[in-house]
């Protein structure tokens, strides 16, 4: 099996960083104050599994992101008719929230939600859904419909209804860009949710990091970051293949 050149480069650099880490922090600076010793990190995997319950916490974060992503995607699809309509109240509302979010970061919402529902795991799902829905709705609202103009003009001349054009033509025209945007935003979704969980502190991967930091357990923090990094990378690759299978077209700029 041959890898894409960009991935090959990525893995080559990863291997170099790994070797440098082993050489420097196992043998040159083995005190574990800057980065942990590779040998100690290896031992931390067991602690992450048994003491930090990384699997169940990982599954909570994973489910929160991807269940919310699926629900948000279909919610945006249902509302797409309004989101692309220049005169729609929903579009204005989303764009006004966007303006608001430029000055008040989304994490403020997270603080309130955590304050109101400190022990609820469900609130993580609500927060992630709101975040992803807003991000996707904003992308669709800002989409330049002029890219789809040839489809729209041609479809209108056939006498197709505006709602059919919105649902079946403009939506499919938007999909390739939306797919790329969703893939690009993966790290953002993971980071924001982990930050939310660190503040909330009782579930998800963020709680693993929070606890490791509280116990000043550098090797567990490092090991957890390694595991999360590898899994997120794999998830993005799988998602990318999956998305390419279903959204196989892309509009080439003419």
């Amino acid at each position, binding site marked *: 099996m041959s890898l894409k050149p960009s991935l090959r480069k990525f893995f080559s650099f990863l291997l170099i960083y790994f070797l440098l880490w082993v050489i420097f922090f196992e043998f040159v600076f083995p005190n574990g104050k800057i980065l942990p010793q590779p040998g100690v990190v290896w031992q931390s995997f067991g602690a992450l599994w048994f003491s930090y319950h990384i699997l169940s916490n990982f599954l909570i974060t994973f489910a929160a992101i991807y269940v919310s992503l699926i629900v948000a995607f279909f919610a945006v699809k249902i509302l797409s008719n309004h989101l692309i309509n220049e005169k729609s109240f929903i579009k204005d509302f989303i764009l006004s929230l966007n303006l608001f979010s430029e000055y008040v970061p989304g994490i403020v919402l997270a603080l309130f939600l955590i304050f109101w529902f400190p022990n609820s795991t469900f609130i993580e799902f609500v927060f992630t859904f709101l975040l992803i829905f807003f991000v996707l709705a904003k992308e669709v609202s800002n989409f330049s419909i002029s890219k789809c103009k040839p*489809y729209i003009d041609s479809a209108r001349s056939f006498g197709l209804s505006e709602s059919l054009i919105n649902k*079946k033509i403009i939506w499919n025209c938007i999909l390739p860009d939306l797919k790329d945007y969703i893939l690009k935003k993966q790290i953002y979704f993971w980071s924001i949710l982990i930050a939310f969980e660190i503040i909330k502190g009782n579930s998800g991967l963020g709680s693993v990091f929070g606890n490791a930091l509280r116990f000043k357990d550098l090797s567990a923090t490092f090991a957890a970051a390694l595991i999360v990094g590898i899994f997120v990378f794999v998830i993005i690759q799988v998602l990318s293949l999956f998305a390419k299978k279903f959204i*196989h077209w892309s509009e080439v700029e003419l």
Partner: protein
Amino acid sequence: MNSEKLLEVSNVKKYYHGYLGSKLKVLENISFSIPKDSEQKVISFLAPFGSGKTSLMKIIAALEQASEGEVILEDKKYSLPDGNIIYIPEKPSSFLWLNVKSDIEFILKNTRNKSSKDINELISMVGLGSYGNHHSHGLSYGFRFRVSLARALAVNPKIIIIDDSLKLMDHLTRKEVYEMLGQVVKKFEIKFILSTTNITEALLLSDKIFFMRKKPGTIFHEFDVERDWKDKDETEKQEKLHALKNDVINFFRAEKMNHDLSFSA
């Protein structure tokens, strides 16, 4: 008499509003008609870029409203597109997410008009015989134009507008498309309106050419193209084409627009 006319465009003007109440005139007093039972099946608008051809085509197809004047199709004002005038834009419009067959089926499922021709027959007529199950994504401009044309023919419209859609094709593809269009025009009782900047294209495909000048776009001459030379052998055809091109260029030279047009095949 109005009843004999398939399409009548009368005194169409189009202007856009600019700053401080200024008006940008795009089209000025465009009037012409297409008789119902005329032998002339392909009418072209030959003009340089920026002469309002696309605005005119869209007004005819009721995709844009004229600022003044009206478009009458078979004695009725044509102000809402209903599938009787199909517009094929300059950029490819076949749906990238559907295959050729599904694209045509999608349109047929959602429109009132239907052609008596079967989908497979239409696909082979436009030269896409073995491409029925191919997705438009990955097809060339030429092929995507053919899909748009098959889709248009499928709903049996009165008029098909081709808005400079062949411009993006390479030389060889364009020649093949001219040939295919010639065959299609013979087989269907549909009128075609072509907008182009290409003299050769206008001469090879049309029965009548309207020459337009720009700023604002107006028709300044009507030119009937004889048919007989098009079926003659290649040498004679090229000689006649060359002579006609010179005639056309002279008209545009008089308007100081001869450099704005394209001559390639």
